[in-house]
């Protein structure tokens, strides 16, 4: 005869409510762990998906994610001639905030070096990847955008051609992919008035320098399009992504590029470390701490619940002792309930989490290893928490029944 299950059956309502309470508590612990994992995964997601061996950024910067990096676009061509380099793409990344259907919409724009990079590596959940050089984009599903939606960015409308799943930036914003040229157009978009003012200012600046005095013809061009003045320099991008040929040592290629005085080079692992130790470090530590605190709070709450449940049964426990029940019978009654409470609570937490976590604003990633760890922790907590009740039960005086 199992006393624990008999007692539970008799007090099913109370036990169910208690289990539900523990389940909710554990769901928060589970969710916190999932957010922690999500944060780490989000931080390194793009770096992993892109799969570049080397990230070439502006000299002395930790770009392009940890801090702003600006390098000329033609640096991709320079990188391509380095022995061992298989491909090199320009890359741009920045965050914008717009209003869409009356709601704020934060997007992290990623510029892909069309046509070499068409975003075929993107995890497309609906629609397709980029199919032309301009005015198309692929958005993450978390942005709320749908395939065929049109969004005005800069002076142009961009049509959503595909949706990705799980592509969010380290700060949790939805990623949007478009061609590098379009991304630059959006980034450097200026109002017509700003352009006019800049052209006038440019002419004035020209006359203040020797070049303007020597070559007055330049003033005609200075008042025109920027692209009409080669001397103004090439357009800027965030980074160059390099893939190394098979058989070549990545570190050796990195060293060669690093020798250039205008760039810093990071391996994929180095870039990940920059993200983890930089952007998300504080949040990661905060979440980790909060998670540990929650586990401790859960342990205390479970101990109090089990202690209260034991107190309710103290007379019965005294009676059991009086009629000669061994301590193991009493121990079994309390501990089996504690473990059952923990197990049911864990299952409730998991099932409820599966249902609720997708609606969390941040991505919650439940890793199997974390779930196993939490299950073991809950098991240990259940046993430890029941010790308070066991201690009280062991002190129950069988003589109390006579009193």
């Amino acid at each position: 005869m199992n006393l624990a299950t008999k007692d539970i059956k008799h007090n099913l309502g109370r036990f169910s409510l208690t289990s539900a309470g523990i389940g909710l508590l554990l769901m928060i612990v589970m969710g916190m762990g999932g957010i922690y994992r999500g944060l780490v995964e989000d931080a390194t997601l793009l770096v992993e998906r892109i799969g570049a061996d080397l990230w070439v950024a502006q000299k002395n910067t930790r770009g392009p994610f940890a801090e702003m990096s600006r390098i000329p676009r033609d640096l991709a061509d320079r990188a391509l001639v380095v022995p061992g380099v298989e491909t090199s793409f320009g890359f741009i990344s920045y965050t914008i905030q717009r209003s869409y259907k009356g709601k704020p919409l934060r997007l992290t724009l990623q510029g892909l070096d069309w046509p070499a990079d068409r975003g075929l590596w993107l995890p497309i959940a609906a629609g397709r990847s980029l199919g032309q050089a301009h005015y198309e984009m692929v958005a993450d599903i978390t942005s709320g955008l749908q395939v065929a939606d049109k969004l005005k960015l800069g002076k142009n409308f961009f049509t959503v051609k595909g949706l990705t799943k799980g592509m969010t930036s380290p700060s949790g914003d939805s990623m949007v992919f478009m061609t590098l040229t379009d991304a630059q157009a959006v980034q450097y978009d200026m109002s017509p008035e700003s352009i006019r003012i800049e052209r006038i200012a440019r002419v004035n600046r020209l006359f203040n320098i020797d070049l303007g005095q020597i070559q007055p013809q330049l003033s005609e061009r200075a008042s025109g399009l920027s692209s009409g003045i080669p001397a103004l320099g090439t357009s800027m991008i965030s980074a160059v992504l390099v893939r190394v040929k098979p058989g070549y040592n990545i570190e050796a290629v990195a060293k060669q590029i690093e020798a250039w005085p205008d760039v810093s080079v990071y391996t994929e692992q180095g870039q990940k470390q920059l993200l983890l130790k930089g952007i998300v470090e504080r949040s990661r530590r905060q979440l980790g701490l909060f998670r540990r605190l929650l586990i401790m709070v859960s342990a205390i709450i479970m101990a109090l619940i089990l202690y209260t449940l034991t107190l309710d049964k103290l007379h019965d426990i005294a009676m059991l002792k009086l009629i000669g029940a061994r301590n193991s019978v009493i121990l079994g009654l309390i501990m089996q309930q504690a473990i059952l409470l923990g197990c049911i609570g864990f299952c409730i937490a998991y099932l409820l989490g599966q249902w609720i976590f997708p609606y969390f604003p941040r991505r919650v990633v439940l890793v199997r290893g974390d779930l196993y760890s939490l299950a073991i922790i809950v098991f240990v907590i259940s046993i430890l928490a029941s010790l308070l009740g066991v201690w009280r039960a062991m002190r129950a005086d069988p003589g109390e029944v006579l009193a």
Partner: protein
Amino acid sequence: MSRSNDNIALQAAGLTKIYGSGHTEVVAVRDVSLSVSRGEIVALLGPSGAGKTTLLTLLGLIRPPNTGRILIDGTLVFDNHQAQVDVRRFRRQKFGFVFQKANLIPFLTAVENVRLAMEIDDQPAKVSRRRSMELLDYLGVAERAEYLPSKLSGGEQQRVAVARALANHPSLILADEPTAALDSVRGRQVMELFVKVAHEQSAGVIVVTHDHRALDVFDRTLEMEDGQLRRSGT
């Protein structure tokens, strides 16, 4: 009733129980000696505070005496305050307890309450199931076997408690005011039940009671006052 050493369920000699010390010292039981044979039913009378329940806790091996010896079925159990055996095992194998309230485990049915006493003594489930039904039948509550205690009347609960007390063929049944919560008719029925149990199950029975209306059922009456046995009668 004739007595022989083989037939004696309980022997207690010079039992003294003292609570507290110094100024707060209370001698609850003072130098009490008694013996109860199998099949004998003894009433323990006395005013409140006389030490009846304390004596019952000593005889039931619930608390150790400060001095004195207790023998159950000829086995020395307590020599002064030193237990000579595993008292909890002795309690489940040699004793049956009945109280003013039935003290049934509320989440177990009547039959499970009886079975529990046997199962904690490692008796096989099949045996315990059969014997518990036999006992409930013997005590006239077999038809209420599957009911929880909350669904039983006070008298039925006491019968189940008696069945539980009998489960392990005890040598001695200790009852502390078992009829206090019952009306006179049901109280008398319970007392007669103890007589039946004592005689048919061959168990010694000690009943602490205030109910003088049912004293005629007892083989012997003992009266306590100020922690001492004053008189005894038959």
